């Protein structure tokens, strides 16, 4: 073995850790902004709908995840997907066996529907914030999951709406409204990052996604 090659490896590994930490820091800041916006929007939705209309009491009796996380050697990606080929189900006029190969799986229902048919824009915005927070990445990914064309795209640039409430506005339910964030929305943190790589010398360390 070349003298010094171990040192070089260690240096390279240390740099990798540093870069990963820096990336993590950036992602975390973005996440925090999305969270704040989301909490604010939820408070507004509660104001619109009433306290008890936006709570865990409304959760669906069953839930199918629309977002999952995939790990690979290249990093971690969080991808959204509706879990199957998206064909428009055809009306079958005749009785009898289901079509060959089974009927296409139905896409998971939108959790927004737990809160009613007509939901206030603030609730929809809250959903948008948390979708950006739990990244929804399209495009190539290591998971063998097709991206159906019907996957709702997370609207970007909607930073202006929903942040208009004056700080200190009371939601009316005993829950304080977080101060309106000043920052604009940043893009979701769904890019493949350096995280997830075990230390080359075999020590694994708990890493954030």
């Amino acid at each position, binding site marked *: 073995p070349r003298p010094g090659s171990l040192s070089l490896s260690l240096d390279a590994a*240390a740099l990798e*850790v540093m870069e990963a*930490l820096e990336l993590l820091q950036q992602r*975390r800041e973005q*996440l*925090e902004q999305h*969270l704040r916006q*989301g*909490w604010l929007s*939820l*408070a507004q939705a509660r104001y619109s709908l009433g306290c008890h209309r*936006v*709570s*865990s009491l409304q*959760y*669906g*009796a*069953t*839930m*199918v*995840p*629309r*977002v*999952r*996380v*995939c*790990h690979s050697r290249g990093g*971690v990606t*969080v*991808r*959204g*997907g509706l*879990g199957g080929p998206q064909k428009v189900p055809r009306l079958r006029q005749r009785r009898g066996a289901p079509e060959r190969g089974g009927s296409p799986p139905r896409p*998971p229902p939108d*959790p*927004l529907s737990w809160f009613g048919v007509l939901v206030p824009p603030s*609730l929809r915005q*809250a*959903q948008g*914030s*948390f*979708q950006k*927070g*739990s990244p*929804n990445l399209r495009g190539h990914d290591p*998971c*063998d*999951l097709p991206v159906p064309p019907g996957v709702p795209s997370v609207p970007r640039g909607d930073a202006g709406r929903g942040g208009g409430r004056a700080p200190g506005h009371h939601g009316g339910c005993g829950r*304080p409204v*977080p101060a309106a964030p000043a920052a604009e929305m940043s893009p979701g943190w769904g890019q493949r990052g350096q*995280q*997830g790589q*075990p*230390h080359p010398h075999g020590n*694994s*360390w*708990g*890493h*954030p*996604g």
Partner: protein
Amino acid sequence: MAGRGKLIAVMGDEDTVTGFLLGGIGELDKHRRPNFLVVEKETSLAEIEETFRGFLAREDVGMILISQALAEQIRPAVAAHARALPAVLEIPSKDHPYDPARDSVLRRARGLFAPDELR
């Protein structure tokens, strides 16, 4: 279920969990345990810790989002987790801002360079 990706679990206050569920991470099925926990004042420490350990043990959970305030309450269990997966991410809550000094992952990373800090 291979190739579909793993679940993201979340533990936090009602607003945090509601938000992430709106975002689409939730799984609730009568045959399986839910991948989320809404923690309220009445929630016992034992339940928090048991839920966390349960998520760690599940093969199908790839990431755990946990409010740092909660992680603090069960810090030994969080700090003991040294595997790469599931990834544990401590997040702020409305009432408790994120403090990097308390984050187990960051402490471990610092420990790579300053072993004295790694307890």
